[in-house]
């Protein structure tokens, strides 16, 4: 009971890297894949090869990867409009993602969903979501389903600082808590919802995670740009959830380096300051993690470069795959309205 009222602020010791090497490599490669993928999205979008909206995850990679590296393949995940990172972290294939973003038939959703709706049911990815807070109920239900079927599966619900003010959060958090469901509510606090500062519209003393106290669930405030801290928090909370001890709220403090979506202008000229952005750029999760791997003797500069080359190539191949894939046949428009 008292646990729920305690806010645990987690920030790992920069000096050490207390995770096994294969896991560190996986974390690093996934984070870099997200970064390179998002850079490619920016490019194809700017070239006019992709339509709709592109909400880039650049800067937040440690959050998705830190959490998902604590999950099993059959655990569930609900994502958001800013979902590319979550999908890659959970094992989504970059070629099928890129094809989906271009509306091509080889995309995950046969071109019917696009960037805001990519799903891979076989990986437990119940979908990105165009509705802020839209995945909260679903994650709660997936956790209920896992619990009823006795599978030990957990559900992770990613959402932004903006979504914590949706009524769906209260309803889902209460339900998950009162039924002790294995849900990790993961708030990625990047400090802005579109062009509005979270602090201007969110009634908390300091942390969004304070809200958890109202639902009798533990809360952690985590350095969301530190993959180790995020991962360790997630491991502990996943274990707790699997043991039937119920949901938690994890707040990953982070920052998006780009605008809300591609093409919406320069944030530093309008709603945020260059100083603030610079502070966060200094905490870029990817070089930070690379430095720690090097310090731990896991990799050297040359190897980091070769990892980057491999990943960059994989992303280029994904773009080529997507470019080559055709649009769906017009007749597909009426397929899949019903199962």
């Amino acid at each position, binding site marked *: 009971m008292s646990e729920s009222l305690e806010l645990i602020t987690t920030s790992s010791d920069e000096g050490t890297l207390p995770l096994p090497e294969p896991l560190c490599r996986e974390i690093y490669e996934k984070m870099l894949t997200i970064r390179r993928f998002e850079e490619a999205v920016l490019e194809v979008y700017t070239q006019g090869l992709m339509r709709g909206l592109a909400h880039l995850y650049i800067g937040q990679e440690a959050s998705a990867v830190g959490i998902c590296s604590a999950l099993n393949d059959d655990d569930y995940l609900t994502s958001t409009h800013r979902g590319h990172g979550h999908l890659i972290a959970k094992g989504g294939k970059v070629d099928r993602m890129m094809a989906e973003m271009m509306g091509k038939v080889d995309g995950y959703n046969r071109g*019917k*969903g696009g960037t805001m*709706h990519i799903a891979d049911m076989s990986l437990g990815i119940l979908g990105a979501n165009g509705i802020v807070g839209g995945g909260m109920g679903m994650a709660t*239900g*997936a956790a209920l*389903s896992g619990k009823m*079927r006795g599978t030990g599966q957990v559900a992770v619900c990613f959402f932004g600082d903006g979504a914590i003010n949706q009524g*769906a959060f209260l309803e889902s958090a209460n339900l998950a808590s009162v039924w002790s469901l294995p849900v990790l509510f993961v708030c990625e606090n990047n400090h802005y919802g579109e062009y509005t500062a979270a602090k201007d519209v969110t009634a908390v003393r300091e942390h969004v995670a304070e809200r958890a106290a109202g639902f009798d669930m533990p809360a952690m405030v985590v350095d969301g740009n530190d993959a180790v801290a995020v991962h360790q928090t997630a491991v502990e909370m996943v274990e707790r959830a699997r043991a039937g001890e119920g949901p938690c709220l994890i707040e990953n403090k982070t920052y998006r380096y780009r605008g809300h979506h591609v093409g919406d202008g320069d944030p530093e000229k309008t709603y945020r300051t260059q100083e603030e952005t610079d502070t966060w750029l200094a905490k870029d999760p990817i070089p930070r993690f690379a430095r720690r791997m090097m310090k731990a003797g896991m990799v050297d500069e040359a190897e980091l470069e070769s990892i980057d080359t491999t990943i960059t190539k994989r992303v280029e191949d994904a773009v080529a795959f997507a470019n080559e894939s055709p649009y769906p046949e017009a007749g597909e428009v009426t397929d*899949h309205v019903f199962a």
Partner: protein
Amino acid sequence: MSLPERQITYGEAVREAIAEEMRRDGTVFFMGEDVAVAGGVFKVTVGLLDEFGEDRVRDTPISEAGIMGAGVGAALTGMRPIVEIMFGDFITIAMDQIVNQAAKMCYMTGGQASCALTIRTTIGAGRSSAAQHSQSLQAWLSHIPGVKVAIPSTPADLKGLLKTAIRDDNPTVIYEDKMMYGLKGPVPDVEDYTIPFGVADIKREGSDVTLVATSSMVHTALKAADELEREGISAEVVDPRTLSPLDMDTIVRSVEKTSRAVVIDEAYQSYGVTGELASRIADEAFDYLDAPVKRLGAMDVPVPFSPGLEPQTIPDEEKLVRTVQGLFHDVPV
């Protein structure tokens, strides 16, 4: 060959359908506000908790969006939830989860996901419940591709359609008229009685006019048909039973025979079910029509509380009779 029958109420039909499906399939479960211990505010789910236990029959918090969302999530991951929304008016609070999530998951994922969610909720005025507990909002979800909608008028239809809905791999909604829970009627006494969606039922045969009626308005239409019979007008009553999918064939065949049609439904008349049906009939049965298609819905006012006001807002048999008469003579309507 007629099937053996039993008399049960509309409410008992709900309970039987849920219980039979829960016995058949361990992934079916039922949740809603006050549905377990209390057996629902209309008492139609009494006994389910005793038989199936609290894991599968769940009292939820008063969180329509939350429980609908949980239903969607459970349905996406291998369960077959039945979610009850106590009053159909409250479904407005869960709309995002139905309209933007459940209805679109299969399509948006290119067929990867299916959402075997059954929603039960109520419609119908007539008990002085005032404007927030009396509406018939069936047009709202009938408007949404990806949702199937049933609107049963009898215990047998309710039982058969609800069982089909629970087995369907898609989001389905059953609109139950709360005024009819006590209505008794014959239900085929066979194991596994189901009714397919998209098959209308001719509730009464006739040759001069087609009355297309839904839910409680079927009973209004049947009474009006008796009255019209005395005047020498033979009315056929067609109950679509499901609004989505809609069995236009049966309606068009009836109009082909009668050459006249009146549509009656308890929802607000403007932009609703009657408008859709009338336009489809005008379009698809134009060649057979000898008169314009008429329609009767609820008055376009919030449902009033006072017994002195409420009845006139709902279509009734007198209005229906007059409307039909107007198609034959120059009776002012």
